[in-house]
């Protein structure tokens, strides 16, 4: 514990250096804007701004990009509550009761509860990350290929099970992502795979063009400017404080959302999105007045908003301790660190303590900055929403092109982004969620290598995954989840996931 406190002191001495604090602030500010603006989520935002960090050192780069990530979770609530438009996917559930509260004249209170809940969830996540990540990194050194394989398989199955779209659709997207991840030179044999004699494809398809194409350009293609909503409720500053009754109603959902979000966050998958869906379902289940949900229930705002921020921070635990990207966003963050010559994994904490602890400490600072930014400046962020969409999306397209091109100075990457944009448009038409595709692409090289190494280690015996304690535990969880999903699928039962999907679809149609 003493060592942790000493390390944290080192972290704060790094995070509070004026330049680093400035980049944390910049990340939080840009993240809030990314969250506020519909059509540009945290993944596209981080990918587009990746080249901006090339001139920074590794610590400043990761501090700024992480600030964009958790800042967008804060900002996403603003559009959900004031316009019933989720600024990004994890804010979908907040639309339901947040907007209903706004219609009742409680927009300020809803924003305040969302911001305070987000701060508590985020700060709790950082506290646990501080304590858990270093010892977990020590254990992670004992992880071999079978354990990595089992963990990644669990991540895919968990994502499929928790997804609000159907299990089959999620698995198909993951398959497509895995296949895209296999393009390029096979690291173990040197064979060129599916590269069609294009030298640029030798290193494979990057995460950035795929993510920016699917989430940035794909969203723009699906959103003609005439459809953009302009009806915005602007809260007054004096209305921001919730009443004593509202605080009372928010307390337990914030507590539950914090714990639930963090736990979901450390499991591979689109944690921040899933956690908000689960938190909403949980709050409705435990509420004494479930009929109030959809009509402005405080718990329907407090729980999901807290959970998505706790999950965003929780996702950093496997990233920093194991070096495993549990979501497309953390994969881009790993890419950013690798560009700066820092390899993420169990050795990070010892080899680059200034990066590790500076980053952890910056999240404490960043969460405070976000609280200070989001409450008093809400009317400023709302003003951004008044920029006509017709003028906004050409700007986003320009940033998409710059962001993708600057990573490798490759025009092929920009063409890939355009193709992925068209694919993203088509996937939306056919009700497919693109997130599992990106996750499949991210984990594909690690999964393939660890699976093949495991089989070579065991001389072709698949039971290697069931003979080692850690991989056995992970595989058993995967099998249980698959069995539960198959049970609902075969009997065509309407479980909580289906009901949530219907709630989400209903909200989208409004």
């Amino acid at each position, binding site marked *: 514990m003493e060592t942790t406190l000493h390390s944290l002191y080192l972290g704060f001495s790094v995070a509070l250096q004026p330049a680093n604090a400035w980049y944390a602030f910049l990340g939080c500010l840009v993240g809030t804007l990314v969250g506020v603006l519909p059509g540009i989520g945290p993944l596209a935002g981080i990918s587009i701004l990746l080249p901006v960090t090339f001139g920074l050192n590794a610590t400043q780069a990761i501090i700024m990009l992480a600030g964009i990530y958790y800042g967008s979770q804060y900002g996403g609530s603003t559009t959900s509550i004031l316009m019933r438009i989720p600024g990004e996917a994890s804010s979908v559930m907040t639309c339901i009761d947040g907007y209903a509260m706004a219609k009742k004249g409680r927009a300020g209170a809803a924003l305040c509860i969302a911001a305070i809940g987000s701060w508590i969830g985020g700060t709790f996540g950082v506290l646990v990350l501080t304590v858990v990540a270093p010892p977990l990194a020590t254990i992670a050194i004992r992880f071999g290929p079978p354990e990595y394989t089992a963990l990644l398989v669990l991540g895919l199955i968990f994502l499929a099970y928790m997804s609000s779209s159907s299990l089959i659709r999620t698995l198909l997207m993951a398959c*497509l992502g895995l296949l895209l991840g*296999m393009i390029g030179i096979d690291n173990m*044999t040197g064979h060129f*795979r599916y590269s069609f004699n294009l030298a640029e494809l030798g290193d494979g398809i990057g995460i950035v063009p795929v993510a920016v194409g699917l989430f940035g350009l794909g969203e*723009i293609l699906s959103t003609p400017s005439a459809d953009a909503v302009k009806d915005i409720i602007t809260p007054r500053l004096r209305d921001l404080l919730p009443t004593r009754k509202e605080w009372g109603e928010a307390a337990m959902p914030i507590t539950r959302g914090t714990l639930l979000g963090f736990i979901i966050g450390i499991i591979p998958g689109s944690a921040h999105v899933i956690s908000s869906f689960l938190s909403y379902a949980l709050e409705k289940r435990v509420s004494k007045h479930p009929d109030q949900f959809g009509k402005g229930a405080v718990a329907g705002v407090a729980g999901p908003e807290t959970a998505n921020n706790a999950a965003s921070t929780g996702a950093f635990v496997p990233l920093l301790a194991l070096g495993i990207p549990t979501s497309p966003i953390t994969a881009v963050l790993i890419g950013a660190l690798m560009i700066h010559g820092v390899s993420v994994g169990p050795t990070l904490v010892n080899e680059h303590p200034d990066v590790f602890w500076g980053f952890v400490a910056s999240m404490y600072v960043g969460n405070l900055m976000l609280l200070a930014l989001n409450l008093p400046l809400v009317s400023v962020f709302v003003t951004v929403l008044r920029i006509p969409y017709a003028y906004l999306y050409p700007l986003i397209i320009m940033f998409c092109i710059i962001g993708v091109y600057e990573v490798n100075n490759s*025009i092929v990457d920009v063409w890939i982004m355009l193709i992925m*944009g068209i694919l993203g448009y088509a996937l939306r*038409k056919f009700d497919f969620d693109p997130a599992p595709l990106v996750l499949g692409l991210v984990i594909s090289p690690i*999964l393939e290598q660890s699976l093949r190494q495991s089989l070579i280690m065991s001389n072709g015996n698949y039971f290697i995954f069931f003979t080692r304690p850690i991989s056995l535990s992970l595989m058993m969880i995967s099998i249980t989840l698959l069995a539960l999903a198959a049970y609902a699928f075969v009997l065509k039962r309407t479980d909580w996931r289906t009901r949530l999907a219907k709630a989400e679809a209903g909200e989208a149609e409004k």
Partner: protein
Amino acid sequence: MTLRADHVAGAFFIGLGLLVIALSGDLPTGSLSMPGSGFLPKIVAVMAIFFGAVLVARAKESKAFAELTWSDAKHAALVVAITAAGIALFEPLGFLTTNVLLIFALLAIIERRQVLPATGYSVGVVVTTYVLFVYVLKTPLEPGPLGF
């Protein structure tokens, strides 16, 4: 029988799986004890075919294909065409010229904005972005034939 959205989507994934298997012909599958470079791609392709077939089998739960709305398709096609032209011109013309043309085209052709505001906006945001990236953030952008 009504053609449903999931019939089309499932058929796409079955076709994709078959295509991957066909393209993997020259990749060695190897053995269980020494998997080759074609090992996992073929497994994933078979999974895609299987899940695609399940999607087709349960397609009656999805919307009829004819019910899918394509009202935004014209907007999407125009954005794709203009962006594709922008990408094609990006390296020959450089950042400044290409993006001024790109934003102007999007505003004037798709959004039907008047020439003067569209020109002012496109030149203003592109030059501001150029100054921000090159001079403030020290991130070089693709130069044009005149060196900027």
